[in-house]
């Protein structure tokens, strides 16, 4: 047997588990799929069972929201057992074509969307963007997520960010053409080797700049840089933290009114996994005329939208209501005009759900950057 497999017990501290059930108890997808992550922690102790376990379709239902890991009283990361099982399939080449393509694209083109590397900076066209050079010191090095770069639905976020940075006279620079995927989704899809390679390359690239801080747009890059890139030199921030600072220091002000009811959905990779709850709310609270409301399940008890954990490339078999739909329904019931989030994956997932529920007329799903970009004085 592969040594990888024999490492399960130690790697995931399987004997540390007391079978309390908090992981499965908290797992958001249990209401619609068969996933029972505790069972996987339990069953994986038998290394002969691993191959069989890896064949169970529900290992692909995990969204890597990490609720299980946050709640585990013994410090295990149950989701990583599922990721380990995905890894067995990746090694054997037994994954869906969509997954295979995404991984291959990360390897070849530095993004999971099968887009040409050469087009990575196309979004900058016509904009006044500062790009980093290794010789010049910079306070904020901006790292753009692959999804933001290539997906037309969310590209507006980075464009608005540029507007804001220029307006507030921030000392910033974008990474530019050499930027590559943070590979957090490669990790979640089970491709650990590729992930390690990307960590090494990206660390070298990012450390080559004289930057004090790295600011990410996606909470997924943010989380990866903070937790899985041990050798990064600069401090890592999410853009909501940077904008929060600008507002607090009065370097930025929203001048236009937005008389709308906004409800904020906590991205798991920002909230639950990194305890960033206040900054996005603070940014929204600074919008003149806006009324902020809260989901019943918010902050530490927020409900995952199912956008992470590789779910962009794997569909679940479940016919039951998707969590993003539950979220949209709850927002609608609150009478919200805008369902806001601060994550490209959340936006894509929630937007789909909005359409599925047919609420497009009454409500919008918007990235915070999307909202605030229009509130500045021209």
């Amino acid at each position, binding site marked *: 047997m592969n040594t990888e497999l024999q490492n399960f017990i130690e790697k995931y501290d399987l004997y540390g588990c*007391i*079978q*309390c*059930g*908090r*992981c*499965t*108890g*908290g*797992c958001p997808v*249990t*209401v619609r799929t068969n996933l*029972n992550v*505790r*069972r996987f922690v339990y069953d994986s102790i038998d290394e002969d069972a691993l191959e069989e376990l890896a064949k169970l379709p529900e290992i692909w239902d995990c969204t890597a929201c990490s*609720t299980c890991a*946050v*709640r*585990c*009283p*013994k*410090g295990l990361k149950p989701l990583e057992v599922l990721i380990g099982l995905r890894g067995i399939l990746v090694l054997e080449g037994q994954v869906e074509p969509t997954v295979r393509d995404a991984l291959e694209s990360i390897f070849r083109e530095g993004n999971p969307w099968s887009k040409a590397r050469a087009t990575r900076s196309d979004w900058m066209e016509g904009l006044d963007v500062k790009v980093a050079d290794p010789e010049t010191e910079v306070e904020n090095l901006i790292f753009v997520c692959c999804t933001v770069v290539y997906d037309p639905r969310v590209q507006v976020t980075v464009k608005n960010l540029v507007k804001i940075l220029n307006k507030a006279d921030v000392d910033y620079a974008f990474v530019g053409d050499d930027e590559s995927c943070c590979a957090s989704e490669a990790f979640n899809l089970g491709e650990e080797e590729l992930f390690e390679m990307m960590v090494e390359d990206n660390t070298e690239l990012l450390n080559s700049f004289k930057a004090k801080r790295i600011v990410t747009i996606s909470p997924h890059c943010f989380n990866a840089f903070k937790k899985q890139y041990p050798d990064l030199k600069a401090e890592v921030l999410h853009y909501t933290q940077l904008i929060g600072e600008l507002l607090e220091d009065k370097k930025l002000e929203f001048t236009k009114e937005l008389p709308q009811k906004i409800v904020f959905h906590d991205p798991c990779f920002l909230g639950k996994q990194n305890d960033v709850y206040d900054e996005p709310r603070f940014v929204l609270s600074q919008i003149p005329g806006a009324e902020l409301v809260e989901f*019943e*399940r918010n*902050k*530490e*008890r927020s409900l995952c939208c199912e956008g992470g954990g590789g779910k962009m490339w794997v569909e679940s078999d479940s016919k039951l209501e998707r969590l993003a739909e539950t979220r949209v329904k709850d927002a609608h019931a609150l009478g919200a005009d805008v369902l806001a989030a601060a994550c490209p994956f959340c936006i894509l997932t929630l937007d789909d759900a909005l359409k599925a529920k047919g609420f497009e007329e009454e409500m919008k799903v918007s990235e915070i950057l999307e909202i605030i970009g229009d509130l500045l004085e021209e």
Partner: protein
Amino acid sequence: MNNNKPKIGVYVCHCGVNIAKTVDIEAVRSYAESLPYVKVARNYSYMCSDPGQLLIKEDIAEEGLNRIVVASCSPRMHELTFRKTLAEGGLNPYYLEMANIREQCSWVHEDSEEATSKARKLVAAAVAKARLLEPLEEKEVEVEPATLIIGGGIAGIQAALDIAGAGFKVYVVEKTPSVGGKMSQLDKTFPTLDCSACILTPKMVDVASHPNIELLTYSQVEDVQGYVGNFEVKVRKKARYVDIDKCTGCGICAQECRLAGRIPSEYEAGIGKRGAIYLPFPQAVPAKFTIDPESCLYLTRGKCGKEPKCVEHCSLGAIDFEQQDEFVEFKVGAIIVATGYDVFDASRKPEYGYQDYDNVLTSLELERLVSASGPTGGEIVLGKGEEAFVPKEVAFIQCVGSRDASCGNEYCSRVCCMYTAKLAHLIKEKVPDSNVRVYYMDVRAFGKGFEEFYDRVRREGVRYIRGNPSEVFKRDGKLVVKAEDTLTAKPLEDEVDMVVLSVGLEPRKDTREIIDLLRLSQSSDRFYLEAHPKLAPVDTATDGVYLAGCAQGPKDIPDTVAQAKGAASSALILLASGKVNIQAQISVVNEATCRGCGYCVEICPYGAIEMGEVNRFGHIVSVAKVNEALCKGCGACVAGCFSGSIQQKSFKDRQILPQIAVLGVVK
């Protein structure tokens, strides 16, 4: 006895198989025999046993030994044992040297050859030092026949009554206005369902009325100086703003107070209210009122209407806003720390919604809710006025803040399984048509009568569901417990009216205060550390200071009382003997070479060194002086002294340098 020429006896212990299975005992013994000045070398299965000690005593008598080396365990374990053996054999007890071939050899090395070779070296080093040892005299000091007890919960109360009952003076210092501690807040007590107040109140009254006990409530220890047998204590009696000689406890002031019913009551765990002037609870001892300086209008704003209501209505003129904190000082021989615990702050686990939802309660709040003396008179009702209702669907969540690395508490709190069974029983008793379920991960019913009680409560219809919930949220106005039934492997969302969080026991937030006062240590769970987890569970590393109750770790009332009695017994041994030997291996200053820099004064963690003066060839110069009673022989000053003018007895340079040289460490 002829001490001129060293005659050394070496005794190599097997410690059963602890040492013998790794170290070649015979090889060590025969090697020892070959060392200079060694007259006899023997081995024995357990040197600490009677026959083992007898070997030493016989050899002293028959072979004329005058230095003894025991190669066995750590001196922490048995140095005192063997010193006594020497004394019984007629030798000065400080002619003993130990070589630790257990903790330093057999327990830490797997390779037998290496362990044996290291054991030989350690023995040779001990022999090298042994021949240079000097006899020391232990000084005796008198013990002040009084005890200070910090904390007036059931632990402090029990220890105080025992010591006072034995005829010694006790000072009980309690921070809050009344003694009683957490036990006074409980309704019934598991597993026997005794009414807590009924068994506690008589003891509280006894503490206040016992002629040997001086009760200082609403007070706090400010300073402790001195050493075992002779502690000097300073206590701050906080101003109550009520003259307790005049106050009869009638309570009219509390009824009339402008803030009556508006301040969260500590005793009611926040679910009931009091005024700014208050008696914590009806059976409080002493039954004297106290004004809370943090809420009182007069004290915080200088004005309370035209005249403070309390002043207006107290016909005895007991209210005194001019009152100041007072200080009392006294001497004691022993100190017992019985400061108890805090319950885990449930808002540190936000996923359970404690801070968001009114109907998520902690167990301590439920204790007050089910108590006949509580804010609802013991009726289980939630909500106020129109919205009041009797919860029918009740879920307990176990291990909130216990066994949980995610909030830094890895230990089991020991009482929550049983108090949950008790509270579940009380709910079933008061609301028979309620459905009570307990979400648990393990049920720990280890004490006397516990398993039987757990059996009884289940048969009363309390459902135990094996799965520790992950989250509580609201859907359509109902509380939802999100969990997994791990026995059926089914995730579930359970709609209930009330959630009870079985919060664990934590070290008090002000733990630091006592640590700084008494130089105590904490174990990894942050409770106070006992001297030995098995054999000295009530002692601490500070001589004359003992622990009782939950200050040392979570425990129930039976264990608390047992431990309090243990601490009382330890203190009594000291008080009854009336004398205590103080450390003999203390530091000595060479006044002829001391440069008077005073660095050692700063270094000494026990404040045992002061600067004094001597006449050196007609000049008055400043030199360090060691207070022999305070010196603990830690050696910090020795290592710190720039001029090498301090030496520690039994560890003088000329004694330990040859020892180190044998170990092959080249200077």
